[in-house]
């Protein structure tokens, strides 16, 4: 107590007790509530992933039964998609930093913000409740494809209801952010002077608001179909399973950009800070976020090339899919161009950002392979898809999440972690990640199908390499968490701006005071990333 009394009041020590957290309206505390809950579910998802990898170490049965395996990969998918990666960056870092970066003291609807967190927790408990009650967790895969999801005896309804509730949590967060960005920017901050992270969140929020309701109603239809036995998606009683796939991907493809865009926003913050120079191509990066969000709506059909679609439609979806690569590539080129002739300071967050670019490049280019009609027929539903997806989502968004954690850690807690250990953890994560997932791409090309419990002997060695990779990854992850917790407990105190950043969050104390700013924040002269001492070209 004596120690905190000497410290200036900040959002962490201004109120005490569990109730001051559970009923807080402060966006920073809500962000931390999200961080702890999302982190916990992430570890559950990781554990399930490790179980799968162990099972696949040898062909045949290693540790679990086939039915259990089906349930494990479904639960892994549901947890990772709906409980970790969709809320991860927006709900944690968006909540914490969007208002500070805009120079305001909270989001537009603080109560709604807290309500979103409670919805998230309720949805999460529903999803996990399938473990202990009913006929066990769903075994359908996270896509809940009909008609199997209508017929299986496992607890699909509960998992689907959980996804529905989590969807509403996500919608309300998105709605809150859009209104915050429109109404609460500090005087003088026009849209084109906003930090790029806000732009990324803005694009993300629109997708959340406009795409999520479609999955909500589709999932409701699955539940109703299971309850009343009406053939909405089951062909044996007059329904159309392809229609389910359309409705599902109308949401779930844009959702991929809900996962990816905030990560790109984080990278756009980290790179100029550690290159100490203005971001190259501010407007292209900002507008390409909107372009990705927009085009992303019209590409869902590329998930269904092999499930029955007219040739003309398939060609249109394929071309539109290639179009998404353009704004994405614009971002990558601009990031790299920002580093060119910058005063690069290689710190942990920058390493994560560079790893993001590396992994995302592989993920993105394999995405083009999948978007090409001819190749897709060959690699559809193989490990190539699994590899691609994990490169984009874990190698991309996951690494950006870790990068954001290391970048903003000193701002959130006012302390610094051990940088050497953080570098080591990063190296383990990066090596482990690539050892784990690169073999999957090769396995997919060789023809190993995804979601299978067993495999042919010729896939043995690559599967073993992949499983060993998962061990390295887990060691890296545990080291990273240990290092961050140690930093939180007894890290060195830091000042307001340890990285010499220029966006508004670095103008206030670390940790920030309850209302974020004790004086009016000042916009940087000549644009949001205009470093006064940067070398001129």
């Amino acid at each position, binding site marked *: 107590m004596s120690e905190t009394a000497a410290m200036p009041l900040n959002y962490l020590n201004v109120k005490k007790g569990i109730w001051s957290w559970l009923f807080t309206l402060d966006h920073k505390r809500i962000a931390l509530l999200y961080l702890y809950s999302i982190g916990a579910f992430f570890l559950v998802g990781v554990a399930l992933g490790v179980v799968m990898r162990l099972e696949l170490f040898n062909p045949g049965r290693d540790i679990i039964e086939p039915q259990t395996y089906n349930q494990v990969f479904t639960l892994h998918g549901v947890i990772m998609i709906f409980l970790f990666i969709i809320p991860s960056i927006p709900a944690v870092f968006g909540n914490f930093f969007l208002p500070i970066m805009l120079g305001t*003291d909270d989001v537009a609807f603080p109560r709604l913000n807290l309500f979103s967190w409670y919805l998230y927790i309720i949805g999460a408990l529903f999803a996990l409740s399938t473990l202990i009650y009913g006929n066990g967790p769903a075994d359908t895969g996270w896509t809940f494809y009909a008609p199997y999801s209508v017929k299986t005896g496992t607890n699909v309804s509960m998992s689907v209801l959980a996804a529905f509730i989590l969807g509403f949590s996500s919608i309300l967060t998105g*709605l809150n952010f859009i209104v915050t960005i429109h109404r609460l920017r500090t005087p003088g901050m026009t849209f084109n002077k906003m930090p790029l992270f806000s732009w990324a969140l803005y694009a993300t929020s629109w997708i959340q608001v*406009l795409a999520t309701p479609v999955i909500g109603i589709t999932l409701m239809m699955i539940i109703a179909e299971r309850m009343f036995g009406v053939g909405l998606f089951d062909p044996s009683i007059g329904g159309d399973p392809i229609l389910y796939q359309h409705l599902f991907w109308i949401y779930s493809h844009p959702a991929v950009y809900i996962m990816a865009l905030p990560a790109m926003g984080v990278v756009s913050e980290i790179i100029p800070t550690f290159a100490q120079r203005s971001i190259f191509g501010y407007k292209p990066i900002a507008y390409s976020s909107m372009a990705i969000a927009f085009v992303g709506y019209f590409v869902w059909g590329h998930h269904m090339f092999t499930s029955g679609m007219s040739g003309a439609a398939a060609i249109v979806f394929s071309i539109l899919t290639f179009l998404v690569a353009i704004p994405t590539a614009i971002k990558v080129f601009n990031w790299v161009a920002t580093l060119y002739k910058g005063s690069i300071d290689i710190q942990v967050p920058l390493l994560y950002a560079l790893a993001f670019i590396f992994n995302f490049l592989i993920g993105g280019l394999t995405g083009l392979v999948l978007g090409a009609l001819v190749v897709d027929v060959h690699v559809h539903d193989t490990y190539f898809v699994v590899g691609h997806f994990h490169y984009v989502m874990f190698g991309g968004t996951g690494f950006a999440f870790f990068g954001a954690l290391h970048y903003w850690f000193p701002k959130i807690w006012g302390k610094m972690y051990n940088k050497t250990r953080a570098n080591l953890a990063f190296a383990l994560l990066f090596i482990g990640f690539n050892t784990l997932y690169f073999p999957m791409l090769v396995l997919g090309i060789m023809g190993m199908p995804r979601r299978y419990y067993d495999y042919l002997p010729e896939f043995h060695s690559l599967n073993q390499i992949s499983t060993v990779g998962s061990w390295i990854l887990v060691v890296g992850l545990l080291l990273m968490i240990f290092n961050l917790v140690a930093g939180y407990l007894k890290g060195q105190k830091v000042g307001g701006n340890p990285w010499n950043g220029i966006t508004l969050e670095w103008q206030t104390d670390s940790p920030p005071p309850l209302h974020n700013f004790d004086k009016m924040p000042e916009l940087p002269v000549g644009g949001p990333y205009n470093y006064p001492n940067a070398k001129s070209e």
Partner: protein
Amino acid sequence: MNHTFTLPNSGHNYDAKASKLGMWLFLYTELLLFGGLFLVYMVYRSLNEEAFLLASFNLDVWMGTFNTVVLLTSSMTVAMSITALQLGDAKKSIMLLWLTIAAALIFLVVKYFEWGAKFEHGLFPGMDHFNTLPPGERLYFYLYFFMTGLHGLHVIVGGIFIGVVIHKIKNKSVNKNRYQLLENSGLYWHLVDLIWIYLFPLFYLIH
């Protein structure tokens, strides 16, 4: 340290424009929620044209028309109530809101009799007669109950929302200068109305 400093652009300020913008965004999500259902309806109607037509003869067009008139009138009363409050006449505003709630109740009562008749004929999904119908007609009734049921739920929520606003006008937290909550409840009510305007022809009128 200056604890009295507050930013001019604080998120805790009353901001009617923000509130309105938030409401509109929420209405988009509602539209898309029903949009998914409209899409399903469209696909199955085009696949089962005959069956949908046959099944639609089971509905009572007059009851549907009556309910349409009731809802349109209620949209008018809620709009009038906003104007009344803007002009400072809280009493009249509350009276008009009660009329809106009354219209909502009439709508639900009529709906109750409509649904009741279908139940008597065994047309609810899972009932005996329903199970003997061909797949196309089953789909029709399934969608009918799903969509009008979801809409009915929205009528109830809208009614409760308006009830809350009545309470807030009474304790003066919604007043001549702070009427955004009333306007939001009106917007929501118009949406409920609008969705019905589409449901009505889709189920009752297309021949």
